[in-house]
């Protein structure tokens, strides 16, 4: 909690927020500092240092949320926000409970990025540049980025909760461009975590080699097939499939508005028994992990699918209250400028029992989506789409030629029920998830997963 907000100030702000009535008030204060830089054309550029701080105050009254946020952390700034949040209310004041500090344990950071000389970060980018470019003469360009951010947050509410977290994340990303004649292809890879600079101890250059390899592979690609066929999805970022296809539909705000295809499916069999999945905000050092969520609730491991049965939705405080259940610690926000909403943390399909090669060997003719560029879903209709960044044909039980420009498209309920194999491998990857105009870091994970039939949208009919 550090020195972000003194308990006396927090109590004063909460009292001010409830001065004109309301059942609940909360102040969320945050200080953040970050550094980003990039390498492009083998030149370090776009070096950017950011510092921000501010607070958001919300008051709940009669089903309405009143929210105000201000830049700055002076007690006067916080009280101004409280006054603005309460401005539309005109009832008798409510008395907040005395604050009781909750001790949370932020994820340990071994080497604070801010204490590492900037030259070391520039050197890391040069290493990525060299590793990627040395992958082949056809690598025409390489861009890499480095980002670090430390966010200290404190939450105090009128129920007496007073909690804090200290979050440090680092992430590097590489995009390689390969060129052969008129053919141009790209490959990308990222590495990130809720960690310090120790994340780069092993072999960060490997992601540059991997991005370059993807781009080079695609130079030999043919057009992607179009039509319905069995699809095997790769491990790691393949988990974005479950994130989009199921995770968003389990967020309780969508569910309660009837805007989720899973709304009336709790306890029902929505997938084959071989599928079990979790949302886990406590995974050590993972990109989507925090000690507490942005409402002060401890993060937790929630089983969302148990052997094919829909086991739980994902809740923040407000939606949990409506369903009469405890929050699952999924109340997240991009910053103090946003209201918390139910969001995933790290979402993954638990490893299964089949070897990925054996899984592919069973497919006579299909598509292998080794990696995705991203995806999107409409939770209300369940329609989703994924851009495949690395795809191959499966012919006669074997992965054969690479394909460019494929998209996977389908409907959540059908596709989830069509998962008929889950691999015994497992990997987690980092992502940035957008919802309601807010971006938050999320982890996605799985081993190889096979879907009996899915529509591949390519150009080869």
């Amino acid at each position, binding site marked *: 909690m550090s020195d972000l907000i003194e308990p006396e100030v927090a109590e004063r702000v909460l009292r001010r927020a409830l001065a004109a009535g309301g059942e609940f008030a909360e102040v969320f204060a945050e200080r953040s500092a970050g550094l980003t*830089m990039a390498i*492009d054309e083998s*030149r370090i*550029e*776009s*070096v*950017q*240092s*950011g*510092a*921000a701080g501010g607070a958001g105050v919300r008051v709940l009254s009669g*089903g*309405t*949320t*009143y*929210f105000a*946020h201000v*830049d*700055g952390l002076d007690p006067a700034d916080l009280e101004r926000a409280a006054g603005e949040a309460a*401005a*539309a209310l005109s009832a008798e004041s409510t008395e907040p409970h005395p604050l009781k500090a909750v001790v949370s344990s932020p994820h340990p950071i071994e080497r604070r990025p801010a204490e590492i000389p*900037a030259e070391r970060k520039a050197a890391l980018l040069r290493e990525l540049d060299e590793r990627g470019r040395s992958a082949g003469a056809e690598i*025409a*360009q390489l861009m890499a980025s480095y980002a670090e951010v430390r966010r200290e947050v404190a939450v105090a509410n009128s129920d007496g909760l007073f909690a804090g977290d200290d979050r440090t994340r680092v992430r590097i990303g590489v995009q390689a*461009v390969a060129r052969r004649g008129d053919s*141009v*292809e*790209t490959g990308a890879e990222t590495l990130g975590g809720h960690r310090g600079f120790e994340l780069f101890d092993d072999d960060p250059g490997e992601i540059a080699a991997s991005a370059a390899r993807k781009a080079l592979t695609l130079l030999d690609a043919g057009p*992607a097939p*179009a*039509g*319905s066929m069995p699809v095997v999805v790769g491990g790691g970022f393949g988990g974005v499939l479950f994130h989009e296809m199921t995770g968003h539909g389990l967020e309780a705000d*969508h569910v309660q*508005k*009837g*805007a989720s295809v899973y709304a009336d499916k709790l306890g029902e069999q929505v997938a084959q028994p071989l599928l079990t999945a979790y949302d886990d905000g406590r995974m050590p050092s993972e990109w989507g992990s925090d000690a507490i969520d942005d409402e002060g609730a401890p993060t937790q491991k929630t089983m969302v699918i148990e052997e094919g049965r829909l086991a739980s939705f994902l809740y923040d405080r407000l939606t949990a209250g409506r369903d009469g259940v405890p929050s699952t610690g999924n109340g997240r926000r991009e910053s103090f*400028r946003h*209201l918390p909403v139910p969001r995933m943390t790290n979402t993954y399909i638990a490893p299964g029992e089949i070897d990925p090669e054996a899984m592919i060997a069973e497919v006579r003719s299909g598509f292998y989506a080794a990696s995705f560029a*991203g*995806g*999107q879903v409409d939770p*209300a*209709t369940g*329609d*989703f*789409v*994924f*851009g495949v*960044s690395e795809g191959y044909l499966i012919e006669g039980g074997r992965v054969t030629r690479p394909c*460019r*420009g494929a*998209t996977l*498209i*389908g*409907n959540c309920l059908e596709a989830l029920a069509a998962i008929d194999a889950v691999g015994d491998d497992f990997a987690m990857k980092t992502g940035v998830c957008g919802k309601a105009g807010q971006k938050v870091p999320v982890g996605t994970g799985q081993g190889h997963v096979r879907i009996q039939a899915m*529509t591949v*949208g*390519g*150009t080869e*009919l």
Partner: protein
Amino acid sequence: MLIEVARRAVEGALAAGASDAEAFASEEVGREVRAHGGGVESLTAATQRGIGLRAWIGSRAGYAYGIDLSEAGVVELSSRAAEAARIADDDEFAGPPAPGEGLPADLELSDPSLRAWETERVAALALAIERAAIEADARIAGVEQAVYADSAERIAIASSAGIAGEYERTSCYGYVQALAEGEGGRETGLGFDLGRGPAVLDPAGIGREGAERALEMIGARKPESGNCPVVLDPTVAASFVALVGRALGADAVQRGRSPFAGLIGHEVAAEALVVHDDGLDPAGSASSPFDGEGVARRRTPVIEGGRLQTHLHNAYTARRGGTASTGNAGSVGYRSQPSVAASNLVVAPGALGFEELLEKAGAGVLVTDVAGLHSGVNPVTGAFSVGASGRAIRAGEAAEPLREFTIASDLVSMLKAVRAAGNAPRWVPFGGSVSTPPLLIGEMTVGGS
């Protein structure tokens, strides 16, 4: 005065060792109302202020931002900006623009109705949007959200090269995501409107549009795969035009990462497609007297006579390309440094009404929504395959609803295949500020069953 804050930051950066500096300061007041179930779900009041500072040490550039506008805060910001510049490598084209590349236009970008309308009144507007959607048809099961939001901002830019300017701008929008039920399924439909102040928004129209878009999707099925004519409604056409705008940025072009590299003066589109970048259109939400580094905005022909007229430039790319800035330094706020971005992209309307466009298509697909644009497009080659929904076109008329299909092509091929532009343009704010009519594309690949 905000411009004084910006000037102080420039002086601070010079004192910290910078040879040149440029500051972007902004203040913003905004509010948002979310309506649901006949009541106000949330009411947000936002105030923001901050400053971004670019510092150059010789030909090395750095950037820093912060929210502390006090004297001590500006000193700290200045030293961070100078420190950032010291990390960067030399780039001979780096530096602030010189002043006087065209005079900033005198634009009226503020609508007094924004401040005049009290919170209660804009809350009523959000509620009216929701009500209009629900009352449109018995099959509307509800809305996911009905939203009104607005902001009033003040922006100031000053630089050591002599640039100094300040302006005010207001903007607002309303939208609804309506839910329709029928044939055992749920469909969603988006309705929206935007302007400089709430007085110009049409809440009933927004609600009706959301309802109609959801209703017309009831019972949608997958189309068969094939190549056919495709009509893009303005919301979809705008999404693609915004992608084209990004690919036209000279930064991508100069680094060999644009499908439009080396094509100035060449045929890149059918003659039916005429596109301007217009930073001065009073109706465009991206309009401003000057761009993100203080260069005057202007109206630039981009695609005319089927040929590419220019790429879009900021000061850096202009210097690197041996040309003049087109006033396209994008500014999305003090938290990121100016890049290259289209302002408002305006597609010239054609002669045909919407029905005539469908008639000209004959048989094909009308696309009313696309998904996955951020993952389904290769920005380097322009190749794309994205998810889509819409309606079949049969015998020149819109027929049964279609969902869960893909459309695939590449940007230049698509622009060359434009057969006609409709006569009714619309402002669309998805992925950029674009005004476009519906477009008829001669042929695209539709991937369905």
